[in-house]
């Protein structure tokens, strides 16, 4: 743990903090450009059963009668202390609203990630084992995955496996089967990028001299793949993996809506419909926090894993990109 690395880590953490706070500001600005007036739309809507006193309390809490800049400052300081505000819809703390559904989305996202990695490894390893002529289909798969809208994947899975084969019931979205298929729908598009990067990495490594040497020593294909080619090829995969977190969160919006799951995605969907701005603000900022933290960890771990970049560069993410490019577009 030399001083250079610690300095690099400190700088990187500082950057991450700035990005998170700015992401909050950007979200706030986007949301408060909203032409509709949340007070009239939601709070004074008789369906919600707020009394005038409630409305006055919420308006005072959010400072909705204050200038936008003051609102931003107060909102930002509350966010910095971990206070996410109160849902306009349910009158519950936003942190509780999010906490209630976080587990479901975490399970879905983890399962989807597992699906994506498994598919990517299958495709990438397949290209290494099959003869060149038979590889075409496998190599075309990622670009096919990237061309299919994710809601179509979900609908097809439901149509075939729930309605025709009866493997799961749509009305029990949290059953193991339903969760697996939701994870499949969410994971397939993500697997495409991983598969592309991993395949390109393996292709590149298998053309290196050390691979020829290993082959000439009579090393079997599987041993070569697992012992030598996989490790250098998987570094860019880690980078891409960190970047796909955002995609999982965005995709969850559609997947959860289609499969009827309650989760962060469907919470966003319903909050958009009911214009529950504090919930939207909180979810989007938290998504940014998750993304930034995961990528921060990837950045910090990378120099430790890869001796080639052990001397920490000044702009680590740029360097990692260059590395990913070199490996994937030989």
């Amino acid at each position, binding site marked *: 743990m030399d001083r250079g690395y610690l300095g690099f880590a400190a700088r990187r953490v500082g950057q991450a903090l700035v990005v998170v706070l700015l*992401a909050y500001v950007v*979200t706030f600005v986007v949301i408060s450009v909203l032409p509709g007036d949340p007070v009239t739309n939601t709070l004074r809507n008789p369906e919600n059963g707020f009394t005038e006193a409630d409305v006055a309390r919420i308006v005072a809490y959010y400072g909705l009668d204050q200038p936008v800049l003051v609102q931003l400052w107060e909102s930002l300081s509350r966010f910095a202390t971990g206070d996410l505000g109160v849902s306009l819809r349910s009158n519950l703390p936003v942190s509780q609203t999010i906490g209630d559904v976080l587990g479901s989305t975490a399970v879905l996202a983890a399962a989807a990630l597992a699906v994506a990695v498994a598919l990517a490894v299958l495709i990438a390893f397949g290209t290494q084992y099959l003869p060149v002529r038979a590889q075409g289909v496998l190599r075309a798969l990622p670009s096919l995955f990237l061309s299919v809208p994710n809601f*179509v994947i979900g609908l097809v899975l439901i149509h075939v496996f729930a309605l025709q084969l009866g493997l799961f019931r749509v009305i029990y979205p949290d059953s193991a089967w339903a969760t697996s298929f939701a994870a499949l729908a969410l994971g397939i598009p993500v697997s495409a990028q991983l598969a592309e*990067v991993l395949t390109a990495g393996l292709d590149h490594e298998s053309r290196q001299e050390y691979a020829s040497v290993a082959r000439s020593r009579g090393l079997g294909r599987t041993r070569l793949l697992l012992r030598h080619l996989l490790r250098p090829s998987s570094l860019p995969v880690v980078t891409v993996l960190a970047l796909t977190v955002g995609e999982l969160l965005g*995709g969850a919006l559609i997947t959860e809506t*289609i499969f009827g799951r309650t989760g962060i995605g469907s919470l966003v969907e319903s909050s958009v419909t009911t214009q529950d701005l504090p919930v939207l603000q909180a*979810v989007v900022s938290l998504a940014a926090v998750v993304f930034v933290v995961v990528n921060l960890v990837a950045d910090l771990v990378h120099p430790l894993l890869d001796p080639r970049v052990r001397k920490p560069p000044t702009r680590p993410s740029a360097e990692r990109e260059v590395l990913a490019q070199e490996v994937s*577009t030989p």
Partner: protein
Amino acid sequence: MSGTVTAVRAAAPAPGRRGPRRRGAALPPPTVVLSLIVLAVVVAWSLAPGLFTGQDPVAGVTSQKLLGPSAAHWFGTDHLGRDVFARVVHGTASSVSSALVAVVIGVVVGGAVGLLAGFLGGLVDVVLARVVDVLLAIPSFLLAVIVVSSLGFRTINAAVATGVSAVAVFARVMRSEVIRTRRSVFVEASFLQGGSRTHVLLRHVLPNASRTVLALAVLQFGLSILVIAGLAFLGYGDPPPASDWGLLVSAGKDYPTAPWLVYAPAAVTIATVLSVNRTSRWLRGTG
């Protein structure tokens, strides 16, 4: 949705094989020809939908509701007896041109940001790079959703939202391309010969960077079709009787006994995006 990484990485040209192949070389591979034909059909559908179907996309014959695909109704009919083929064809213009709007926003705004950051460097670069980091940190589909929800649920707003969510990717690629070009010897030579910053920027840096950015733009066009379809699917585009592809799928999913309502518009979307991606790969000269 899917994207940033693949887009950024895929836009990097293969060394030694920049740009389209030599003119006059052999015909493009068959899959590319097929893709170009598909794209030509899609463009024709969006320019003159009336030429391809005589049926009304909005008014239906209720006695003919939920009919399967047949010679009279290629894609079958929906719950109001409207011809699905006619609805798909008439929805093309809005589905495809909104993706075009999104890409233009991404290229122009993102390109300008990347160009300024890369060319001016220094403090400008530091500030703009942070802004781009922030935009990248918010999941792009989520960003598109909150932008469209604050602008209002219209297809054109969905297009703007998609464009905004693509700005960061373009800015990043443009910046790295500009920096790469700026460091090259011919740019140095141009400065030494007394070329002004504007001259160097317009004559050397921009043309060199634009090739990669344009290849990315084609890729982003396919991606934007998917994002806009997703937004339309969630009901964030024009309401019915508009017939955006995503909206058609969304309306069709409520009739599981009539799967063609989902499969037909989905197949058209997939064929279009697949063709765009294939063409983009061919243009980059990587296959």
